């Protein structure tokens, strides 16, 4: 007789202490759902750092402080450089997301020989897997480029808020795919990647929301923030344009 009482008490305690629950805003952050011809985005592949940062309250607030803002479609993923960390230590592997710009909104040169029709986004690729048969610098990243492509495929609508990438702090051990001199390599803040999930578009859920935060969930600034208002990528682009961001 005491067990059900204890179980009920535990359920209450867990609920109050926050040891349960899931992401809000209706965006599937983990696991992939197949709906029609579409597979839900799996942004968990990007959520490997959980930064300490102060979320900005709206897309326009973020656009104000980031020098580069553009919408487009994912063009693919490529090897970034592998960087030294410490002597005899594992390498830090980077991955680069290519976004083909369709809507330049801020800081994009759209004309001339140096036009930025493509933005390159530098991201942490995640942990390497220990392999005691090899030296630590030879340990390989767990996630392959195919994993990134499968999780966030080419053609996905995307928006990036970013700054020009600063030189890497660790020495480059493996260069990865070389970028052209004109290429714009960028670093986004935690709220700086937003995708449109086609399964949510197809789902036509009651709230109609189809946007998913990349590195952090959109509701990291709170469910009452301006991030909750645009329902799809067109809405987000329109919102930023109406706030004066348009190259």
């Amino acid at each position: 007789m005491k067990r059900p009482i204890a179980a009920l008490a535990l359920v209450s305690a867990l609920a109050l202490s926050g040891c349960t629950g899931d992401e809000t805003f209706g965006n599937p952050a983990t696991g992939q759902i197949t709906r029609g011809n579409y597979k839900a985005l799996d942004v968990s592949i990007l959520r490997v750092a959980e930064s300490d940062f102060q979320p900005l309250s709206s897309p326009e607030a973020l656009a104000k402080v980031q020098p580069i803002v553009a919408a487009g479609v994912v063009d693919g993923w490529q090897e970034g450089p592998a960087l030294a960390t410490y002597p005899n230590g594992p390498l830090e592997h980077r991955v680069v997301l290519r976004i083909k710009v369709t809507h330049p909104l801020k800081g994009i040169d759209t004309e001339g020989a140096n036009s930025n029709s493509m933005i390159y986004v530098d991201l942490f690729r995640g942990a390497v897997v220990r392999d005691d048969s090899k030296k630590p610098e030879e340990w390989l990243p767990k996630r392959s480029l195919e994993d990134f492509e499968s999780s966030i495929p080419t053609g996905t609508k995307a928006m990036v808020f970013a700054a020009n990438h600063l030189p890497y702090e660790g020495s480059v051990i493996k260069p990865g795919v070389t970028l052209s001199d004109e290429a714009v390599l960028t670093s986004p803040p935690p709220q700086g990647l937003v995708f449109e999930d086609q399964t949510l578009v197809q789902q036509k859920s009651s709230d109609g929301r189809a946007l998913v935060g990349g590195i952090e969930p959109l509701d990291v600034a709170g469910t009452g923030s301006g991030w909750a208002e645009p329902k799809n990528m067109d809405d987000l682009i329109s919102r930023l344009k109406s706030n004066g961001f348009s190259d």
Partner: protein
Amino acid sequence: MINEEGSRRETERRAFPSVFIRKEKMIIRKWRIVVIASLSAILTAIAATVSPVSLMANTWPFDGMYPDKSTHSWCYHSSAGSTLRSYIPGAMNYLYNSTTIPGIPQHATCDTQNSNQDGDPATDVVWRQGNLNGQFGTAPCFVETASNSTHCDQRQITIGVNNIENSDYPHQQYIKTVCHELGHTAGFDHYAGFANPPAIPPGGVLDCMVSGDVKYASNPTGSWIWQYNSHHLSHANSWWP
């Protein structure tokens, strides 16, 4: 009716005392279950209604990657400057003193070698500093254990010194962020306590696992900036018995 029922129960109590007592206990237990079930439903509803954000913010370990159960060793990466270094030992000692973690040895050089290779486990925490875009710090897993994909051999913390130095309370921000990122290495989750609406801290007490700028706290210089609340500490203490 009440008197008739009372009289019947009194007769029963005198004639069959053991049966009567058993029946009374069963009634009490049934009512206890009803009351607790009702309270449970009410409390669950309140938790879900008042702070949906807080409900998502407290899994342990926060990213599904368990630390090892031995000491929580640490080292300085060459990038870590003297200002940053001045905040690390205090945070490490606090973690050690407030949990059942068996030790926090400092490694003179960072390494990934296991006990069978150099006599002590791989360094658990590497402290680095860097220029981060919009972030005070990060603490991703860098080395995953070969035999278990849910265990992290080493995390590398990068403190975004550029953003901390430009914040309104750099001293307090250093303390809070160092405590925060170290908490991640022990598996603690963070929460959006300065969001709109703010998430309620797991356990109800603001601590350094809140994300963001200390200036948004009602007391940016309070002791919470270097403390873990009891809820987070209980996670560590159940892992390092």
